[in-house]
Each structure stands twice: as C-alpha cells, then as structure tokens.
C-alpha cells in the first residue's frame, strides 16, 4: 500500500527492517521543510507571529497524540527524544522516588535493553529487585505466568506491548486488571506496536506508555512518554533548565511549571514534533486497522513461504505481529544478512538489543524481518527466491 509516498522505495531496495526504523513518507519531510522555510522560531516564546505558529503546532501535536492513543488529557503527553529516553525518565523520574529496597519489578527476558538496564541501575541505587515473568513455549506472556510471578513485593510490571525479536503481542488489558487488583503499576513499551495496531491507553488502562516517532513513519529524535496525570504530578523532572521553571530565586528556590511542560526542559525537538504530527495524520489517513489487517496477511504469506524452505529455521512462527526471526541452517545470521544485502534486501542480524533472550530462544543471533504496510507479496517472493539460491552463499559474499 501507498508505496508512491516513499522516495526510499524508488531506490530498488526491499526494506524489511521496519522494527529498527520505518521509512518516511514525503509528507513528513515536507512538513519539516515547511517549518524551516516558513515559520522557524523557538517554542513557548510566543512574542511574535511565527513563534506563535510554532507554539500552536507544538501543542496541536500534543493533542493529536492524545487522540491517537486515546489519553484523557493532552497534559498526559510528554515529548521526549524516543522510547529509550521515555523509559529512563519514568524509571529515574518517577520510580526511583517511590520504590523502596526489596520492592520488585517484573519484566521478561524479551524486553528491549532500554526497559531492562534502567531497572538494573535501580537495583544498585536503591536495592529494588528485578524479577522475570516466565515465557511459555512460544515465548509468550500468559496471564497464569503473570499471576505466578506476582508477590506482595511486586510494585511494577514493565513490559513491551509487542516485543522486538519474537513479535509476540501481550494481553495488556488483562495484565492491567491483574496488576491494578494487586496495587501494581503497569509500564508499557509500545515502540513496536504503535504503528501496527491500535494503542488505546484508557482501554488498556496502562499507567505509563512510551514510543518513538521514528518507528511510526516520523523523524528520529522524537518520542512520547504517556503517564496518567496523577502519576505525572508525582514524577520529578530529570532535566532542569529553561522552559520548565515558572520562577527561581537567588537562594535556590525553584517553582516548576505545570505538567507536562516541566518535563520538557530546554529547546525541544520542534522539527521532530512537526514531523511526528504529519506522520500521525498519515497513519490516520490509511487507518491503523487497515494497516494491521494488511500486515497480518503479509506475515502469514511470508511464514507460509518460509516454511516451504527446509533449510530455514523460523523461531517465532506462532506469533501474530510482523516480526519474523529466522536463520539459514548452519549459516551465521550476519552472513545471511550480508548475502541478502547483495540483493538489496535489508534485514537485521543480531540479538536485537535483547541480549538475555538468547537463553530462551537457544540461539544467540537471528535474522529478523519486520514488515510494514508498504511491503508487498512481490517483495516476499523476491526474498524467497534469493533464499532458495543461497546454496552457494559463500561464493557470493566472499
């Protein structure tokens, strides 16, 4: 769908690394150009006409995001540089101040590093414990296993909506019910889901949620931290400086501005916000449900084709999202990626920032295909053909 909107797709490449970042449609680029060509100014400084335009666009985007994820209030949307910064902000700005020694946070081994390492740091800084929800044989999180992992010390569950290697979709709504029944807060990493399925923070009833603009057809360097308003009110700023303070005096007294402005110190990534705004319009125009349905069909097609190749090992044929982890048997993942690259097919090789997942998968490194709505069955046919001809892979890559 909509391939004509992407200049990168005119370059004779088959782009199958959408989990890493998505390509950008022309409208995103044009919106950014428009800002630089026609109304460049800083934000929150509305003393003249162009700067007022910037302010309006900036706050309009906040409200657009609020609608996109169905938050209650625009003030629950904080702009960050991406999912990583959002998670760090939540963990160091909120949880570091409310958790106590021996409190437990539940994660899984398939989380992204950005949802593991900050928690590890809190184990050292304040003595919390990181515990893992066990995965089932398809690497999924089951409600039973969530229940089993909860103790009277559990204070937080912090998990991805969709994981980036296995691509399993977590039953967030049900997990949230169990969490809240036990007075546990739920943090959801929606980096891999936001552009591929409907994310509704009220329906899911999550306490915090994060995502990145660049994985949803927007620019790099912009992301979102969603938090329920009463939680954000208790969150401490991590960065202090201009824009976020209402008043400060010589003796060190600081009065903060309101939520969420107090979390956006310094000049924000204005072009990022404007680009993200355009990306959201773009997704809304296609329709997230259409995207989901199309990508699901495409994945089924891909899996069926891959399964016909007996020399391919697939690690996650039983998950529903657009990520497929595979290897050519007895070939190192990176060699496979280099081979596919010879045919301009872009896939990711490695452990995908989920280094502790390898024990569960029983393989250290995989090639990952992650789909988007602009991928086609023809591209998959091409991939399959190239894989079929991989008998002499070393002749081609050496």
């Amino acid at each position, binding site marked *: 769908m909509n391939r004509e909107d992407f200049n990168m797709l005119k370059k004779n490449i088959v782009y199958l690394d959408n989990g890493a970042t998505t390509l950008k449609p022309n409208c995103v680029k044009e919106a950014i150009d428009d800002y630089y060509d026609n109304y460049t100014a800083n934000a929150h400084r509305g003393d003249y006409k162009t700067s007022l335009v910037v302010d309006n666009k900036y706050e309009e985007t906040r409200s657009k995001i609020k609608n996109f994820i169905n938050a209650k209030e625009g003030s629950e949307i904080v702009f960050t540089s991406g999912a990583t910064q959002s998670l760090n902000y939540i963990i160091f700005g909120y949880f570091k101040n409310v958790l106590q020694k021996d409190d437990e946070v539940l994660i899984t081994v398939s989380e992204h590093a950005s949802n593991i390492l900050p928690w590890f740091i809190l184990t050292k800084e304040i003595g919390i414990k990181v515990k893992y929800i066990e995965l089932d044989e398809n690497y999924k999180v089951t409600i039973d296993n969530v229940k089993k992992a909860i103790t009277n010390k559990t204070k937080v569950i912090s998990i991805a909506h969709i994981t980036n290697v296995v691509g399993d979709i977590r039953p967030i709504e049900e997990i949230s019910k169990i969490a809240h029944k036990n007075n546990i807060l739920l943090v959801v990493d929606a980096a891999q889901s936001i552009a591929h399925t409907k994310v509704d923070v009220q329906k899911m009833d999550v306490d915090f949620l994060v995502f990145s603009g660049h994985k949803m057809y927007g620019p790099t360097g912009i992301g979102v931290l969603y938090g329920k308003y009463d939680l954000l009110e208790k969150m401490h700023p991590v960065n202090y400086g201009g824009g976020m303070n209402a008043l400060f005096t010589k003796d060190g007294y600081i009065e903060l501005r309101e939520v969420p402005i107090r979390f956006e110190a310094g000049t924000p990534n204005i072009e990022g916000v404007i680009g993200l705004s355009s990306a959201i319009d773009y997704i809304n125009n296609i329709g997230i449900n259409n995207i989901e349905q199309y990508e699901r069909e495409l994945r089924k097609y891909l899996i069926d084709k891959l399964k016909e190749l007996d020399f391919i090992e697939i690690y996650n044929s039983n998950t529903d999202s657009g990520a497929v982890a595979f290897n050519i048997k007895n070939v190192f993942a*990176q060699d496979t990626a280099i081979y596919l690259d010879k045919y301009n097919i872009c896939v990711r090789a490695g452990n995908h920032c989920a280094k502790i997942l390898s024990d569960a998968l029983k393989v250290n490194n995989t090639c990952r295909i992650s789909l988007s709505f602009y991928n086609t069955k023809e591209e998959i046919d091409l991939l399959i053909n190239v894989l079929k001809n991989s008998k002499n892979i070393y002749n081609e890559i050496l």
Partner: protein
Amino acid sequence: MDSSERRNIILKNYQDNTNRKDVEDSDYIKVNSRNASCIDNINIYIKINDDIIEDIKFNGEACVIAISSTVTLINNLIKKNIDEALNIIDNYEKMVDGLDYDSQVLNELLAFDDISKQPSRKICATLASRKIKEILEKSM
C-alpha cells in the same frame, strides 16, 4: 591472489574445526574478543611455553570472515616464537589496513588481502589478531 583461490582458502579454513573448541586447562590464557557493532563473539585460548606459542584454540560465534581469519591466523602462529608471531600479526594488520606489508610471512593469510577495500569488514578480519597481539605483548 585471484578471487576463486582466495575464496577456497577462506572457506576451507572456515570449515576447519581442528582448533575450534573451548579449553579448561589453566596453562592456557583465555581472552574474549567481540565486535560491539556487530555480533561477533569468540573466546581465544593461548598456551605459551617460554617464548614459544605452543597452542591456540578458540570457540564462539562470528561471521565467515571473522572465523576464517581466526583459523588462518592460528595456523600461522602455532609453534612460532613471540617475536615471529608479532611480526606476522603486524604485517597482517598492515595488509588489512591497506599499508605496505611483507607478504613473505603471511602464507594463507594473504587470502584476506582485499579486506582493505571493504572497510566495514576490517573489524571482522582482525577479531582474533587484535586480542592475540595484546596477550603476546603482555607475555614478552
């Protein structure tokens, strides 16, 4: 070296598992070598007796260039004294960097002579040499 000759050597050594095993012997110095930007990750075990490299083993996961260059290098270093070994590594790394080098000491390592034209693969081709060099320099 022409490209089919090059490829044959690289592939032959890639498949050569003679020295590809973990070692539990305390006579061996163990060192890990990784490329953070990709996913190469091997352990290297070196046994030095007086001035002589008695044995080198390795194990781990890495791409064909990294594994094959490791095997080829190990084959060249075993039974050499430390000076000779460092000289081989020095010339090998010069070759990989596209500098002048002494081809007489490199034997099959010459199969990697066009890596200098593929900058992104230099780190693969030097996965073992970088660490072995460190160990040898410390052992002098």
